Structures are given as C-alpha cells and as structure tokens.
C-alpha cells in the first residue's frame, strides 16, 4: 500500500497518487509580475469608480456602472488572488453556494420591501 498523498483530479475524478514533487506546489498560479498587473488594473478601476462618482455627465448610469465595475474587481480578486480560477472545483462550488444563497435571499428581502422601486 502506498503512503504517498492521494488526490482526486478536480475533486471529482479518480484518486491519484501524487508524487513528492507535486505536494504543496502550485505550478499554474499567476507569477508575481501578473499579480502586480492585476493590482494595477484593480487600482485603475477604483480610480475610475471614484471619478465616475463625481462626474455629473454619467449620473443616469452611475449606479449600474459602479456596480459593474465592482463586480469586475470582485471577480478579479477571487479568481486570481484567491486562486479560485486555478484551484479545485469543490472550492468554487462552496464559495458560489454561499454567495448564490446570499444573493438570492437578500434580493428577495429587498424586493419584498420594494427597495428597487422607491
């Protein structure tokens, strides 16, 4: 019987024997230069968000535009900095389950109280 760590391919596939060179390594995560690029993009989006909040010309589309930009930032941090894009699907499912449940419950609550049509 082997004592080497066992893994499953994407948490759903067959059990695999991981060699010693695989344990604890993260070959496909972005490199440091890529992390810095992502941080610069996030900073730029934040700057645009703040500029938009002062720009009267975009007042009509301010809320949707700001929400769209914040979703982009959210997804970038979760996908790249939290490595959800590269990690096991199980982690993605756990996080999306919590996020989805929260979105569903609280959208229902806010809709019940007519928050969108005030």
């Amino acid at each position, binding site marked *: 019987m082997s004592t080497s760590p066992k*893994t499953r391919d994407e948490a759903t596939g067959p059990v695999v024997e991981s060699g010693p060179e695989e344990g*604890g390594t993260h070959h496909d995560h972005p490199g440091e230069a890529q992390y810095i690029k992502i941080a610069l993009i996030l900073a730029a989006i934040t700057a645009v968000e703040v500029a938009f909040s002062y720009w009267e010309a975009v007042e009509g589309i301010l809320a949707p535009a700001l*929400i769209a930009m914040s979703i982009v930032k959210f997804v970038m*941090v979760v996908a790249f900095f*939290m490595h959800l894009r590269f990690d096991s699907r*199980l*982690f993605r499912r756990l996080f999306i389950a*919590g996020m989805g449940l929260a979105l569903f419950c609280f959208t229902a609550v806010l809709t019940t109280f007519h928050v969108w049509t005030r």
Partner: protein
Amino acid sequence: MSTTVTASSGSHTEIDPGHPPTSTGLTNEKVAMWSFLGSECLLFGALISTYLLFKGQSLPGTIQPVDVFDIPYTSVSSFVLLMSSLTMVLALAAIQRGDQRLTRVWLLTTALLGASFVAGQAYEFTVFVREGMNLRVNLFSSSFFVLTGFHGAHVTIGVLMLLSLYSLSMRGKLPPSKAETVELVGLYWHFVDVVWIVIFTLIYLIP
C-alpha cells in the same frame, strides 16, 4: 486500491506531504476555510441588505450620508486595502518558493497596510461621532456602524493572524512546507478585501 493518474493541468488539488489522505484529496483546512468564507457571504449579505433596506428611511432633519461621507479619504483607505491583497499574494508566492526573508517582508507589509486601514476607519468613526452620529441616532447611522464595524473587526482579526504568521516566521516555525497556512490566512484576507469592494461601491459611492 488507487489508480495512478497524472493530475490535469490547472488543477491544484494536491495535498501537502504529511497530511493524512482525505476522501476529496483536498486538505480539510482549505475545505473548511472555503466553507467558512461561503457562510461569511451570508453574514455580510445580511448586513449590507439591512443598510440598503434602511437607506433613505432615516427621520428628516437627522444626519444623512451626504453630510458625513468623505469620498477622497475613503478612496485612499480602499486603495490601501486593495494593495494589501497584492502584498498578501506576494507573501504566499515568496513562501512557496522558499524565500523566508521576502515572506516576512510581505507579511509585515500586509499587516501594516491592514492596520493603516483600521486606523483610518477608527479616525473616520471619531469624525462621524463628533458630527453627531452614534448607534442610536437614526437608521442610517446604526446600520452603517454595524456594517462597517463588523468589517473593521474582520480586518483587525486578519491583522492579528498576519502578525502571528510573522512571529512564527521569525522563530523559524513557518517553513515552506507550511505554505498552506499562509494561503489560508491569505484567503481570509482577500475575502475581507472583496467585502470592502462591495461596501465601498454600495455604501459610499452610490448616492
């Protein structure tokens, strides 16, 4: 019996050497952390929804967001927290390649950036209280303080965890084989960052 299969490219399901085999092939700690973060979505979802529900419902003549919010100041705080996510991920990259010195540098930088954010929030709260806001004055101030206070408490806990990691590293108790510990603290740290991304937009920027 197990089948030896080459793990597909892009998947990071391997467990650390020395960790007992698990039925999922994933470490229990990481599964627990992602489950915890999923449940935290519900906590912050409830707090954000409460703020939105009470938005514009405060008694006329009492303090309103437009009277107190200082967008440029909060933007700088947001930038600080965003950059702390970068330093956190750099700390993880450093420990994964076995660079202890850079790991400590980035962990300490992340803790300092987080502490700056908390200090900024404490200052902001002080200003708001001087302007007449408190937990009981109206719906806006109660829901605002509860939401941002909970978030600030999370950041404070994160700073304490980072300082603990720094202390462990200084004593030589954070070898590269324990990189997953840094990763778990990192996941928590990035989560408080993404929560702030949502709070900053919904509470501060959208009038």
